[in-house]
């Protein structure tokens, strides 16, 4: 633990328009389950929060193996939203969430508006849940036209229906695999989304040149890791410029404090760490500590001093402090 040379270390607490988080670094959906298993290794109270693996209404078996392939500076996965369904989540994970002492967003997925809403009205009651993340952008679904976030009107329908059913903030998780992510973001915000999570994995494909076969059982998969980081920074930047008052959680290839800071400079109010958890279960905690050291070194008072400041026209930008 490093301490600032002078004065107390900056507070890392952030406020996502009413949601108080102890740090701006959360675990991303699909990389931490709901936290129960990981809590044996990680002091979750030191995390900014946990976004659960997506919960579907019924049990979901997911896609055939192999489900993961390493690629240059990243990896592809095609899990297919495997989870035991809402009932098992409420029985096994909800009691843990209620006692965990860490802010939790429940990620909700489905194949129809009704499925999303039926899960939402149940998980909204769990103590400790501070928000819902609408996973409308998982690329690993049977039909590509099931990706609600590829269609502004469909995205709005799902997010609108969920938002009307809960006083909890609903964050819409979007994909960069669209022509204009700002258009989809606008549809979600108009429909009632109180926040946005940017971005999900990018649809990719890897082929084994020895066997001539796709490396994933499902053929295509979602690309994550450092390879997608600049895409995430671009998406956050574009959307934050259009909606400066809407909280954005930046996601995509965050592995170091500087990756997180870059997303915040682009306009993210907080960040989520996904792939890095698999090789460093304490990644969220260590990255938050690194942000604290950076803020102290720059003489900044808190994470909010970074948000949206990475702009060409900002005279107080890079190196000003």
């Amino acid at each position: 633990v490093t301490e600032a040379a002078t004065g107390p270390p900056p507070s890392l607490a952030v406020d996502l328009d009413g949601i108080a988080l102890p740090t701006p670094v959360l675990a991303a959906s699909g990389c931490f389950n709901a936290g129960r298993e990981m809590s044996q290794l990680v002091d979750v109270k030191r995390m900014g929060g946990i976004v659960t693996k997506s919960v579907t209404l019924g049990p979901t078996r997911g896609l055939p193996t192999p489900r993961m392939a390493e690629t240059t500076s990243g990896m592809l996965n095609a899990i297919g939203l495997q989870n035991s369904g809402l009932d098992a989540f409420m029985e096994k994970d909800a009691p843990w969430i209620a006692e965990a002492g860490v802010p939790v967003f429940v990620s909700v997925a489905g194949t129809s508006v009704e499925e999303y809403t039926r899960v939402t009205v149940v998980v909204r009651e769990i103590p400790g849940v501070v928000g819902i993340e609408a996973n409308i952008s998982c690329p690993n679904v049977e039909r590509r036209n099931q990706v609600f976030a590829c269609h502004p009107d469909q995205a709005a329908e799902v997010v609108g229906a969920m938002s009307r059913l809960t006083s909890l903030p609903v964050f819409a998780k979007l994909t960069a695999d669209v022509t204009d992510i700002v258009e989809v973001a606008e549809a979600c915000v108009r429909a009632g989304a109180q926040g946005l999570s940017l971005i999900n994995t990018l649809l990719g494909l890897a082929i084994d040149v020895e066997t001539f076969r796709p490396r994933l059982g499902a053929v295509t998969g979602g690309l994550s890791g450092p390879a997608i980081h600049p895409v995430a920074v671009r998406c956050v930047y574009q959307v934050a410029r259009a909606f400066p008052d809407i909280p954005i959680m930046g996601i995509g290839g965050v592995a170091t404090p500087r990756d997180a800071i870059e997303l915040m400079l682009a306009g993210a109010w907080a960040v989520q760490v996904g792939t890095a958890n698999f090789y460093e279960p304490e990644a969220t905690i260590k990255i938050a500590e690194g942000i604290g050291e950076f803020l102290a070194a720059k003489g900044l008072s808190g994470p909010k001093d970074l948000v949206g400041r990475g702009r060409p026209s900002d005279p107080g930008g890079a190196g000003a402090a």
Partner: protein
Amino acid sequence: MACGLGVCWTCVVPVLAKDGRGWWNMRACVEGPVFNGARVWWERWFGDAEESADAEADPASSLTEGARSG
């Protein structure tokens, strides 16, 4: 991935229920690594992707198929 902690769902093995009426992708890292070979659905595990996708569309027939090959 594979994380070895039970959270990435990469290391799964398709295993038939004890009564043979249903199956689930079990995590080798936390629910294995030893499984009853008679209940492992080998064909799905090592079959090509298209066959597996077809099988999942009809769980009833795929279970029968799994029992034969297992």
